[in-house]
């Protein structure tokens, strides 16, 4: 079954220089293993091809049912250098919530 991340997660993004971070948080504890398994750094890097040019790192925070992604070289230089409308990556969290994952697990919710 295919689900979009927005069905099981909320998220917030921001900037540190030319790196954007996205915190992806499962709505329920039982959804955390799903995102931990399916939303890998590689998947996210592929999702943001053409946006993040410096690789993606992932950190796990199971205590908050959350993953933290760092998208390097994703903000057009960052700060006041960036020519992007979203120079601080504020809407990249929503862009991640567009991602679909294929799950075999029992129907969520």
């Amino acid at each position, binding site marked *: 079954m295919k689900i979009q991340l927005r069905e099981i997660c*909320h998220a917030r993004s*921001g900037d540190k220089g030319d790196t954007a971070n996205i915190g992806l*948080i499962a709505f329920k504890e039982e959804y955390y293993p799903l995102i931990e398994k399916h939303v890998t750094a590689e998947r996210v890097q592929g999702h943001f091809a053409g946006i993040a040019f410096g690789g993606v790192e992932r950190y*796990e*925070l199971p205590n908050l049912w959350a993953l*933290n992604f760092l998208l390097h070289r994703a903000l057009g230089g960052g700060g006041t*250098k960036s*020519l992007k409308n979203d120079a601080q990556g504020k809407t990249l969290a929503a*862009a991640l919530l567009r991602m679909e994952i294929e799950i075999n697990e029992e129907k969520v919710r």
Partner: protein
Amino acid sequence: MPIETVSKNMKDRIRIASGQGFWGDLLTAPIDQVTKGPIDYMMMDYLAEVTMSIMQKQKRKDPKLGYAKDLIQLLEQILPICVDRNIKIITNGGGVNPMACSEAILEASKSLGIRGLKVGVVLGDDILDRVDELAGRGIELKNMETGERLDSIRSRLQSANVYFGAFPIVEALRGGAHIVVTGRTTDTGLTLAPMIYEFNWSATDWDKLAAGTVAGHILECGGQASGGNFSGDWRSIPDLAHIGFPIAEAYPNGEIVITKHENTGGAVTLQTVKEQLLYEIGNPKEYITPDCVADFTTIRLEQTGKDRVRMYGVKGKPATEYYKVSMSYLDGYTSFGTLTYSWPDALEKAQKADEILRTRIRDLGLEFDEMRTEFLGYNSCHGPLSPKVENLNEVVLRVGVRSHDYAAVERFGKELAPLILTGPPSVTGFAGGRPKPSEVISYWPALIPKSAVTTQVLIQEV
């Protein structure tokens, strides 16, 4: 109105309110925080890297400027209440001129008829004038991300500030300060300091320092922890028009309850707090501040009531030997132009206009480090992830350029308006006139040994 300065026995809890999350934040928030319920402290964060360079520019023009002037206007409104209710204020609004800020505060309280007010000033973070002296002592301030030497940008340096932590503020509170004004202090230090002061936490009690630091991280963006910019079920957040900013209720054992005043809008839930915890962090196991290294993977949260989230279990590690230094330098110019195209074929028209613009730029021989085109209403947020849309009602063409060549950037600004009468039809939205070049301020993060920097704390009294 004389003010009590004698500290009482240890309190069993203190309430620290977030008043401002950035320079330009909701102006009514700090007023609500001091009037709508009990608090002991209010922290107000005013600084970002770009703010520091703007303030340096102001200070160069007038040595009495270089701090957040809004702070003074705000204090004129709330000081009598703060004095009456014994609320202490901690802020980094001193910018690059904390002394001038302190003097302006004393002036304001004088004209309000307040006597006995003590302002603590934290100095020593501004090392712009010490950069060459430090280099002479072998402290090179290389870019900590790229390893580049400072020489390459030395002549274009605009500001250089060390991030101080909570302890200079603690010293000011111990000196009896009712208001503490700092320059570049970490946002988290503003919240942690009163906990250390009130509960006598030791400088090596890493777990408690980490707990207070995490509380500071939750408070430092104001309403973003209490329902603002919430990406979950955002429709469920009540009355954002009257959002209550977050409050950290701290206990001597390091437990913290995040809450807000009753009868305010917004919400404090596990979800709103978690979103803020994840905001702008790197490796969650190593959240580095001058005071400690906090481990965000140890944070435990529990909703204990309406708009009350208890936080416990936070672990910390020893602070590092270094302070972070944030420097800024001039790095060329940018300019942006926008034009709005309407249905029918709005996107196609905007794309054609962009093509014409680029041809004319090429004919003129103008070269830029970067030229970027986005279509607002279509792809400026999610870029290539934006699904194709049939026949948009309207779209905004937005073109930006960046270069060290001022003349080229200025010339670009003259190429937008002609598109209205010489490009595709049904175009509008050029009332603002020609876009002007603006300076690019770039950042240069570095590390400095703590031993190379001296903090100074002054107490001034009116």
